[in-house]
């Protein structure tokens, strides 16, 4: 009784996908190789970061480094991954670059065409620009990259900033992803962690494979009661 309508819906979806490929872009999960199996030691498995509109996410690039620069965890790989996904879905990704560290030479021109790049000088500018874009609500995904900003600068930000951003994201339906060197976004709906360790052999590996290996791990999930819009 139940399976028949379900099969019919699945068949209809398949038909629509074949007839109108533009309306059903391949999801990133189909486009990229499958993630590696869970670690036998029992560590949490890497997950596909799926952003729902109107929510705020934090991705923590955890690699203590003496130079103060948290690099090698795969933050830039994640940006590339998001650019690929935006390209497939015909959307624009906004990169609010807190330390002006994005390197266009590392990406294809076609990928960069999907990017609106805001080159900020410090975290304060980045937050102001993000605030304006969240209020606007036209751009569906905003990536606020604070990975290279000094931790002291980020820890001095008032927590109310993140709560305001969560409210704005809910109102405007924009998905906000914050890339940070340590957990600071108190109002994040979900928190992921990048725990990849760079290897010299990485430089020779296909980037798609590297991306699949450095998927973020879900470390926190919070349930917020959604505000009812007036």
């Amino acid at each position, binding site marked *: 009784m139940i399976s028949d309508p379900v099969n019919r819906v699945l068949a209809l979806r398949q038909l629509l996908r074949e007839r109108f490929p533009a*309306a059903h872009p391949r999801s990133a999960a189909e486009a990229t190789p499958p993630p590696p199996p869970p670690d036998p030691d029992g560590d949490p498995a890497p997950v596909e970061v799926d952003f729902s509109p109107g929510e705020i996410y934090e991705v923590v690039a955890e690699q203590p480094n003496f130079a103060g620069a948290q690099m090698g965890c795969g933050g830039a790989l994640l940006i590339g991954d998001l650019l690929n996904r935006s390209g*497939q*879905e015909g959307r624009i990704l906004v990169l609010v670059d807190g330390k002006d560290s*994005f*390197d266009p030479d590392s990406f294809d021109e076609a990928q960069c065409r999907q990017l609106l*790049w805001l080159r900020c000088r410090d975290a304060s*500018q980045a937050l102001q620009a993000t605030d304006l874009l969240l209020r606007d609500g036209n751009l569906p995904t905003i990536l606020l990259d604070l990975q290279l900003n000094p931790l002291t600068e980020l820890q001095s930000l008032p927590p109310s900033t993140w709560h305001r951003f969560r409210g704005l994201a809910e109102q405007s339906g924009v998905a906000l992803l914050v890339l940070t060197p340590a957990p600071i976004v108190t109002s994040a709906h979900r928190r992921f962690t990048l725990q990849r360790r760079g290897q010299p052999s*990485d*430089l020779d590996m296909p980037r798609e494979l590297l991306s699949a290996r450095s998927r973020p791990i879900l470390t926190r999930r919070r349930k917020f009661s959604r505000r009812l819009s007036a």
Partner: protein
Amino acid sequence: MFAALFIPDFHLQAQLRLRPEWDGLPVALLECPAGVTGKEQGKARILQITREAASAGIVTGITATRAQARCPSLLLIHRNPEDEEASREALWNCAAEVTRDFEASGPGLVTLDLHGVRYAPEKLAAGRIDCLRSLGLSARAGLAANPDLAFLAARLADSVLTFQGPIERIRERLAPLPVTALQPSPDWLELFRLWGVQTIGDLTALPRNELVERLGPAVGRCWDQGNGCAQRLLRLVRAPQVYSESLDLDDPIDSTEPLLFLLRRFVERIVCRLAAAHLAAGSLELHLGLDGAPSHRRTFRIPEPTRDVEVLLRILQTHLDTFTAPAPVIAISLEAVPTRSNSGQTQLFQSSWKDPNRLADTLARVEALLGAERVGIPVPGLSHRSDTFRMEPFLTGTLMPQTVSETVIRSGPPLRRFRPRRPVSVVTTACPHFARPDAIVSGAFRGTLTDQRGPWLGSGDWWNEADWRREEWDVLHESGTCYRLVLESGKWFVEGGYD
């Protein structure tokens, strides 16, 4: 069918609409020109008055001195040709939105020929009244089979009045109107008064032929108007097709508020003209003449062409909020480039921005915050030199970009750049053709390099003064991070790290 749009007390309304601070005040317009003061002004007669002045006992035709005796708080004003011209233009443009065939029949009066117009005349007339109301002008409309009858209907109307049906019934409605409604000459008015002719009904009761024999053919036309049977051709006029406004200021402006006040008036006028031609503003060009300094010129592209005054004004305001002029403003000019409104249907599976004009405004604010050269789409430069890209402005057209399905396969993680790159001191080991970096001995990156790949040599621009050559190394730091190390002009730099 003809329609008459009539603005009562036109000269007074032309000034009141631009001066909201006079709302609720008793105001009277004098017939004498501006500049007349003292006793001469006291003798001048009142031409038009506001409702508040009327309720204070002021009537038209009395002298200014007498009016002030009745109402000491009465505000006396003179006619302002500039304001009247702006209101006349607004009225013309409002008429031109409906039809190109219209006549400027008098101050605050246009007569429209509605033959061939497909829409219901009553709805059109009501729409024109709303349009004029939005510009601060209170108007009435009359609809009838001939132009003069339409004007009489407009005079009688509260809002919209249509004279339709048997001519006898229309004559019955016209009969009680004062004969002055036919606008006869003052000599005839005096004569009619002596004859005891006070209303249109009194006039049309007289035999037409005898009246014409005594007073001439002109009074015959007056009689025909009152009888509702006057037929004539309209003397057509055309609304101007210039979409710019400019003003040289007597007193320089040194703050944003008065500038925005003037710009609002400019935008309203330009929008009126655009609406009359069924066009929208595709871009705006602002020119500010500065006192003793080079003038400021800026072009604003409007992503979704519009005639919305608030949207256009917001674009200008966003710019002016972040603009600091080196000298006071002595001249303002604003020009709109007209274009067709965006009315095409997009494809079924193609997305569009929620509000392209708002997005453009937001990006203008972000550019004001960061600098225009720091916002946009990165595009590779024409050189092989490292970090030579250019920023293209993000054009917020109506549609989002198309999907991109194919990308080039790349290897290795992307680089994160340090801008500016960090100079370091490096200990090297001499090899046959180059010196291999072994350790960084200064700065934040101090440490041993456990693995090195390179060198990758690059050079360019050797044919001009910007000649460059460099040696690149990918090195693994003892902390586990891969960095890009560069040797240029004998100095080492850390250009970034692989992430």
